[in-house]
């Protein structure tokens, strides 16, 4: 198999890599680029742990080929905080204890960021349906929903 040369932007940085044609973007991020914050829970798009933003769209990186990232913009959990300053969602997840084991957390944060970008003032129901593509097995979602609600109000006030 011949490798595919890809030039892309990840968290604002220009990145070039060579990947196999059947390699997923998730594999590229984790195994080639060392960006292990994006998690693999299922590899089939059913759990949302590998959520990233690809050109302003929330996607599962396990269902994107590495080759498809050519010329596009990729945002991962590693790009969410600005230096020392956490994103309000990250801060609120900590304050509300919206994580227990934390394996789903990067995916939830990315999905919640996308949700609030498109709907800055969501109802509880909109949050619940908006995050239905992300599985959490620890929290029962209660504290996650509350953290997103709190972050939304902080972000609106800012």
């Amino acid at each position: 198999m011949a490798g595919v040369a890809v030039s892309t932007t990840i968290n604002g940085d220009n990145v070039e890599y060579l990947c196999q044609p059947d390699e997923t973007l998730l594999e590229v991020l984790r195994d080639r680029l060392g960006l292990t914050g994006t998690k693999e829970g299922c590899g089939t798009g059913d759990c949302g742990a590998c959520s990233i933003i690809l050109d302003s769209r929330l996607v599962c990186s396990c269902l994107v080929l590495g080759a498809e990232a050519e010329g596009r913009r990729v945002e991962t959990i590693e790009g969410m905080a600005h230096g020392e300053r956490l994103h309000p969602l990250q801060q609120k997840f900590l304050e509300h204890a919206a994580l227990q084991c934390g394996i789903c957390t990067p995916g939830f944060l990315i999905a919640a960021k996308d949700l609030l970008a498109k709907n800055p003032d969501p109802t509880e129901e909109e949050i619940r349906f908006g995050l239905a593509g992300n599985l959490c097995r620890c929290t029962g979602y209660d504290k996650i929903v509350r953290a997103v609600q709190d972050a939304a109000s902080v972000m609106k006030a800012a």
Partner: protein
Amino acid sequence: MRYIRPLSMEDAVGLIAGSTGTAAILAGGSDLLVRMKGGFIEPDLIVDIKAIEGLSEIRETAEGFSIGAAVSCAVLGENTALQEGWPGVVEAARLIGSKQIQGRCTIVGNLCNASPAADSVPALVVAGAQASIVGPKGRRTAPVETLPVGPGKTSLAKGEIIEAILLANRLPRSGDAYLRFIPRTEMDIAVVSTGVNLRLDEEGVIVGARLALGAAAPTVLLVEDAAEVLIGSKLDEGTLEKLAKVCSGACRPIDDKRGTVEFRRKVAGVLARRAATTAYIRAGGK
């Protein structure tokens, strides 16, 4: 394996038609990559059609809408003209998978995957949607319901690629709706589903009707008898009862991990009644 991103339909068709091994078309990839991961398909060639001009657009023409094969359901769902014209089609497309899947999946992919449970297909069938197909022998259109011929199988010839789905302009006093049953509130495949498209006269009497069932047979099931029941009625309780019975009777479902034969039969009737009611209201009926 090779990954190629052609810039024209002609190149894409040429690549697929000329391939010797297994060739796969990649638009959203939400079915293809899952099948690759599970080892169910090992393509020798992947043709990514997203860079082909026009395929990622929804065009409004004099006749109606042309939805490009690479338009994600998220983009489709944000199109206000389409939402107004074909709310049933839009709601069906929006039910495919999670937010994450919506960012990638396409209605053409949903159609070509040829699952009997595909959400968008019953809605497209009752809408009278046509597929615009490009192949080695040129361009043709075909009604959507002729595409799936069995689970995982389509009527497309080697080298043929669907470039767009065509929807006519919405006729006055008409409306469509789609409903499915899933065990959870999200993230499931339809256990059974119903698409309905109705047209009324000025008195609110149904003069045109199409009803299709999903996950009720090996392919989407256009229930002609249901149309017969509906036409001429104002969707009174008696009609709805009859409709439910006809739809339950029309099912040829199976027992599987998602539901039983009895359950699918019963719920097909329930959904038909509910979807018809929504479509009737959308058409302006009271």
